């Protein structure tokens, strides 16, 4: 491996670590800044008393200095006891129930949910991951399956109807909210024609694989629309770029069949950067779409985010925020690394 590449990879890795740390800082400070403080969720409970506030403040250690709270959230406060006088900095729950003493975000402990009655945040989030992953993966698959051929077609038939189709649909995607298209399709296909269910992931009581696919079809198609249009535009651009290259002219000049030129010389070179990037895009899809999950009542992480935000469930919100930024940052890092390994022309300087 070339020296500059190694240096680039190390630099990007360090940058990503800093970015993840920054996202934890942002997550923590946003919820600290919130008027009313983290215990505001108590306002929803009519039976609360002033004593509850003092008890919970001590229990969660909210009376400690902000920096100590941040450190405790990030690294856990169970190890504070080894410091001289560190026990004073631990939250109340460490003294009363040592098993609930925090392990910190670094050890994948985001604390316990306020709203879901003390269930660990990681459990709450983990329950939602399969649904989000299923929807994200299938819409990614659909958008690639539809986007690549339509992009190739648009480039090959430049200025004719496939090209116009891609252009007009990209106007459409830019001028209406995509979730609105989903809502309309849901009304027509689900409400009036009864072809698809009106929401959710399964029949009540659960169904088989077919039932799951039945529920998945419309959400996956609708959330694939944006990706489909985006991918076909990228592919069209890459194709047109490659079609103008000298080696394509050479291939044609030496008398290769047009099909061979397109498949062997153009497609291979046009698709390579795209395929490389796909692995990272996949991670981006994992953090889920808040809007689509809300429209289709899909029980994933995006919907959990809305529920948590509405209930002011700060531990869950912070956990989701950190996890989805982490997925995004790692995704971008993977794209960058794979690009630089696959394409020797990429420069490592900014």
């Amino acid at each position, binding site marked *: 491996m070339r020296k500059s590449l190694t240096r680039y990879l190390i630099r990007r890795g360090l*940058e990503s670590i800093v*970015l993840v740390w*920054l*996202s934890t800082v*942002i997550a923590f400070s*946003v919820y600290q*800044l*919130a*008027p009313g403080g983290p215990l505001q969720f108590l306002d929803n409970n009519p039976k609360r008393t002033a004593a509850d506030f003092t008890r919970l403040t001590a229990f969660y250690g909210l009376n400690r200095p902000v920096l100590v709270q941040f450190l405790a959230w990030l690294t856990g406060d169970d190890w504070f006891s080894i410091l001289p006088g560190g026990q004073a900095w631990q939250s109340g729950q460490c003294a009363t129930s040592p098993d609930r003493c925090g392990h910190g975000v670094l050890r994948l402990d985001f604390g316990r949910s306020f709203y879901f009655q003390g269930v660990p945040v990681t459990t709450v989030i983990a329950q939602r991951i399969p649904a989000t992953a299923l929807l994200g993966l299938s819409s990614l698959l659909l958008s690639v399956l539809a986007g690549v051929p339509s992009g190739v077609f648009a480039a090959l038939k430049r200025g004719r109807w496939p090209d116009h189709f891609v252009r007009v649909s990209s*106007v459409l995607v*830019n*001028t*209406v*909210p995509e*979730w*609105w298209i989903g*809502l*309309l399709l*849901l*009304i027509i296909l*689900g*409400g*009036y*024609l*009864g*072809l698809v269910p*009106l929401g959710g992931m399964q029949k009540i009581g659960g169904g088989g694989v077919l039932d799951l696919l039945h529920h998945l079809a419309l959400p996956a198609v609708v959330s694939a629309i944006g990706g489909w249009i985006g991918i076909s535009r990228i592919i069209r651009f890459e194709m047109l770029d490659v079609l103008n290259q000298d080696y394509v002219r050479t291939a044609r000049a030496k008398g290769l069949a047009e099909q061979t030129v397109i498949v062997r010389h153009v497609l291979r070179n046009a698709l390579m950067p795209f395929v490389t990037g796909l692995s990272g895009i996949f991670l981006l899809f994992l*953090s889920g779409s*808040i*809007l689509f999950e*809300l429209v289709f009542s899909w029980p994933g992480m995006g919907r959990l*985010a*809305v529920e948590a*935000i*509405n209930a*002011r469930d700060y531990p869950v*919100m912070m956990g*989701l*925020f950190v996890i*989805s*930024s982490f997925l*995004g*940052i790692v995704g*971008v890092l993977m794209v960058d690394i794979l690009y630089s390994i696959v394409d020797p022309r990429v420069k490592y300087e*900014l």
Partner: protein
Amino acid sequence: MTEASISTVRPTVKPAGRAKERTYWGAVVAKLARDKIAVAAICGLVFMISITLAAPWLTHNVLGFDPESTDLRHRNAPPTWAATAWPLFQQFSTTCQAGQGGCRWSLWGTILSDAATGVGQCFSAGLGNCHWMGTDDAGRDVFSRGLYGGRISLRIGAYVAGLTMTVGVLMGLISGYYAATIIDDLVNAIIQTLGSIPLLFLLITLSRIFQPGPEGLSFLIGIFGWMGVSRLIRGQIFSIREREYIIASRALGASTWRIMTRHMLPNVASIVIVIGVFNVAGAIIAEASLSYLGVGIGPPLASWGNMMQGSLGNFTDAPWLVLAPGLFIFATTLCIYLIGDGLRDALDPWVR
């Protein structure tokens, strides 16, 4: 040489036809005026803006409804012109459900004729007797709320575009001018940080926590939306910063500020205008999405997004709650988008 020969006025050559002087902006306007789609889009946008500006007058004198007065006896009522056609349509749609033995297409004759007579009656119904787009879940007139909602949505669009363009252009200018210095690195770091966190999530959280009004919401949307603009401007500035005229003016002792504003900014003006126009459309959609999630503009104020929020539970029974605000959004953003498209072509007037 005599005095006369000096004072003799040389016969002026009359120009064959005076060449029309064309400035850059003149050419842009001329090209835009020839673009039929762009002209239609401009007319459409002017129309949307004027009906929303005239909303208080229109709702009071033409429609006869107050957008905030509720009428609990007419909740989720269909458009008045479809009062008889709507139950027929519902009947039709139940026959279309799977396992009902196929659609009864014969109903459509009655549906259409009923709707047509309904529209006729609606025109002559007089003030306050016709809900053109039905009523919402509190019995408020959807059309007048749509007009009022447009005031908020368009205002937010303009504010956000203004903010993103100001911050984005400023950051882009600075980081492009000071490229590869610590200032550039700092701006890039901010952009990279903002680009790697889930912004929609952050936006929802912040607007849920602070519950801002239209101005606050535009500030939130704008402050997280300038990164793309900044990147683009930086690239442009970077490519012109070593041009001869920049070096020349620096050699003449022009200040940094002067070089930036007089020599660099005009060179990126066309790009700034085009992205600014597209940003308005993007901001309108962003506001609609946030308000739809219930964290943007809150009731009793109407916005195109929060009008749809009321439809969450009953969208199949009252599809006009989804359709009407969506069409308002679509009409506006389509016009804006097409204007942006036309401008993009027109601002490169020498390319034909």
